[in-house]
């Protein structure tokens, strides 16, 4: 697979480490969340057959975190963003 990095252009997916569902960005505050909320966050996944927003880490590149929108049925990638930008848009980062 080839991931078109927003800063670095097309890169082989081999350069990245895969973390999984990008909903992991939306982490509850561990000090206030209920155990059930933390459980749902840590363990439950939508696991869609189709478009999937997922976190890839550019381990062998610039070590940025990306949110890749990839179709799990076809592996087609329709969007790649810096995870920082996604987190900012969610109001989770400055």
């Amino acid at each position, binding site marked *: 697979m080839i991931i078109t990095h927003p800063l670095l252009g097309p890169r082989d*997916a081999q350069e990245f480490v895969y*973390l*999984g*569902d990008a909903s992991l960005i939306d982490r509850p505050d561990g000090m206030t969340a209920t155990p059930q909320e933390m459980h749902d966050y840590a363990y439950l*996944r939508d*696991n869609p*057959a189709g478009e999937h927003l997922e976190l890839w880490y550019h381990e062998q590149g610039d070590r940025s975190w990306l949110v890749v929108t990839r179709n*799990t049925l*076809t592996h087609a990638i329709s969007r790649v963003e810096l995870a920082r930008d996604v987190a900012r848009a969610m109001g989770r980062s400055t």
Partner: protein
Amino acid sequence: MRYSGFRIIKEALTGHKGWTSAWRNPDPQPAYDYVIVGGGGHGLATAYYLAKEYRQARIAVLEKSYLGSGNVGRNTTIIRSNYLLDGNEPFYEFSLKLWEGLEQDFNYNAMVSQRGILNLIHTDAQRDAFTRRGNGMILHGADAEMLSRDQIRQMYPFLNFDNARFPIKGGLAQRRGGTVRHDAVAWGYARGADERGVDLIQNCEVTGMRIENGRILGVETSRGFIGARKVGVAVAGSSSRVMAHAGLRLPIESHVLQAFVSEGLKPFIDGVMTFGAGHFYVSQSDKGGLVFGGDIDGYNSYAQRGNLPVIEDVAEGGMALMPAIGRARLLRAWGGVMDMSMDGSPIIDRTQIDGLYFNGGWCYGGFKATPASGWCFAHLLATDTPHKCATAYRFDRFLKGRMIDEKGMGNTPNLH
């Protein structure tokens, strides 16, 4: 119809006109007591044991494609019970015992072949870990044996003993492990279930679930609504898709695992071998093909096909272990969808919806579990209590911190 050598002789002398259909092609009834979603190994085994061991009737298996079209027909056919943890080992040992009598039980030769499985050891730390695992297996009534480097050299003189990046230092053997002809497992259970009145309905995809007041009433399918008192879902890689019809999210991700077969070769690998320093395992089928595999590709996928890096990685493992296979040829590579759970162990449990039961999260290891999975799921469906060998396979183990994590990788399914 009972299969036997005598039957073959009789049919051969009379032009093979007497062979009957291995299973019927029934139209779905309006309602059943039990609807099993998924006509793979686990679903078919569940239906078989429900009918045979738990004496239940009015059972249907719904399969969106053909019987055995999922992972039961696309795996590396290995059976073993060499687990470490309490929640797992009794279950897999139960499964191995069921394999041992399976063919006579369902009168179909699935070629259960206890040729032994050998986990190679390459470091002292690995030897410690495998010794611990072997002791755990023995304590649970399974067999385990530590082999020395010399013993292994006698078994497989062509392994890389002399110029290996990770030298072979020994191995953990389970002599009762081995291989089974995978399709025959699906067909044997299918035929046995059909004989006991189970309706096996192919090309029937579940498209929805009818749930009222927290109770399941049946499933919507591509062949219309089918009512059910109890619905058991055993759909492996499609678990999240099917359970989403009931509004449930699962502790599961679907990943692609590739497997491989070589051209047919004169036999030279007797049993199953796993390479402890690379992601590679291999056996040789009764037809002569090397059947081998390695790691999952590592990303969510339902595409049923893999990518090149893992193919190369697996071949490297193979060549590092057995430099003699350089001139053997890879014949076919395929990919299946694995229901990777958050701790690498399965779930056989009720759901919060009355009458809806779930069996999944088998990761890349579901084949060897087929008989016990079917038996335990049938037990749960019939009695509403977990089978004694499957009490740990609960949904709530994640909330309660009772994960069964053989590899200690936690909620990163692609690392299990």
